[in-house]
């Protein structure tokens, strides 16, 4: 059984310090088992200025088992899968401790953005690029931040989702929106023609 009273306390605690930490926790549906975390990209990194959303699932054994966390915002980082958003971070695996909280775990994820560990990669392609061509890595990471993690791009994501829900393939919806400068109706027209 999930210790819901603990999760509830954590939500309250985290909410008190949003100003200070920038870390947000929101309930996804009507259960405390699914949450959305969001962290600001650390200053001085290619992630600066972005807001990164993380899907959180609380397992039955919480807090004796780590929460499951996965980026829903696309991010270019050696320890985060550019495909799935899976995170390679020891405290979310075998180094979990019940003294950690969702907030401290999210802070660790934020710290991971600042200090990648390419020798223990989640995404081998990104890690290779980081090691062999650092400048290109920074450029790509920054571009992904601009494209996927900025407030303006969040709007685009919502529109893509809406069009995808109408039955259009996501990639097509995205390129249609791109082509018309983000106007939803024009994109729809384009997709239907």
């Amino acid at each position, binding site marked *: 059984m999930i210790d819901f009273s*603990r999760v509830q*306390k954590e939500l309250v605690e985290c909410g008190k310090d949003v100003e200070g930490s920038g870390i947000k926790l929101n309930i996804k549906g009507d259960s405390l088992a699914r949450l959305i975390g969001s962290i600001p990209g650390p200053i001085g990194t290619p992630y600066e200025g972005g807001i990164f959303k993380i899907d959180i699932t609380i397992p039955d054994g919480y807090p*004796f088992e780590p929460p499951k966390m996965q980026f829903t915002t696309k991010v270019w980082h050696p320890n985060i899968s550019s495909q799935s958003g899976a995170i390679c971070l020891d405290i979310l695996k*075998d*180094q979990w401790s019940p*003294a950690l909280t969702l907030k401290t775990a999210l802070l660790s994820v934020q710290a991971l953005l600042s200090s990648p560990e390419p020798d223990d*990669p989640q995404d081998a*392609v990104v890690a290779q690029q980081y090691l062999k061509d650092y400048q290109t890595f920074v450029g790509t990471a920054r571009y992904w931040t601009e494209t996927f993690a900025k407030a303006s791009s969040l709007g685009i994501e919502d529109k893509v989702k809406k069009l995808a829900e109408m039955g259009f393939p996501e990639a097509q919806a995205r390129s249609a929106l791109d082509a018309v400068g983000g106007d939803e109706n024009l994109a729809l027209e384009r997709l239907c023609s």
Partner: protein
Amino acid sequence: MASEPDASEISAVFERMVRNRDLTLFLPFIFGLSNAASRREGEDSSPENENEESAQRERIILINPFTQGMVVIDGASSLEALLRDFGRGKGGRPPASKESIDALPCFKIEEGDEGECVICLEEWEAGGEVKEMPCKHKFHPNCVEKWLGIHGSCPVCRYEMPIDEETGKKRDEEDGEERRRRIGREVWVSFSFNGEGRRNENSNQAPSDDSNDS
């Protein structure tokens, strides 16, 4: 390519494995290595291989003749990193021994004691009980017993409790199995030696150009 393993690197790796007695982990396996150079000069004209990037990543192939299984590990950043991953204890600390848990002293919470049990985040209540670990960190008896039964280390400072030798060993073996499944992007291929054909099972989004049979 710096990470391209050559013969001397491999033999050094084997030497280290012998020294660390990690070799048992590898005995059923035959090592194979494949990389971009050999592939490009080879039969690489099929359209699936137009993706330069995926063709340029190294592959490490492990073959287990007993189970007739083969695992292709794609894009492992280097042989070195892979082996480090194999060798490292990744399952967290095994459970504390029952005796060591039972031996933790119990205290009554006094009026005015401040703080909380960091496991359940409940504040101390006067008259309640706490258990104290050797590192002096205190928790509710139920909370800490449950945790130490899973991992034998202090939630706050990771002080290591004595573990049960037997269960420790068993868990190590299980973890080895688990680790093997988790590393890199793996493509599991079952094949049979008597030519019954083979199935190709793609465990995740690793590039599918591994099967060059058509």
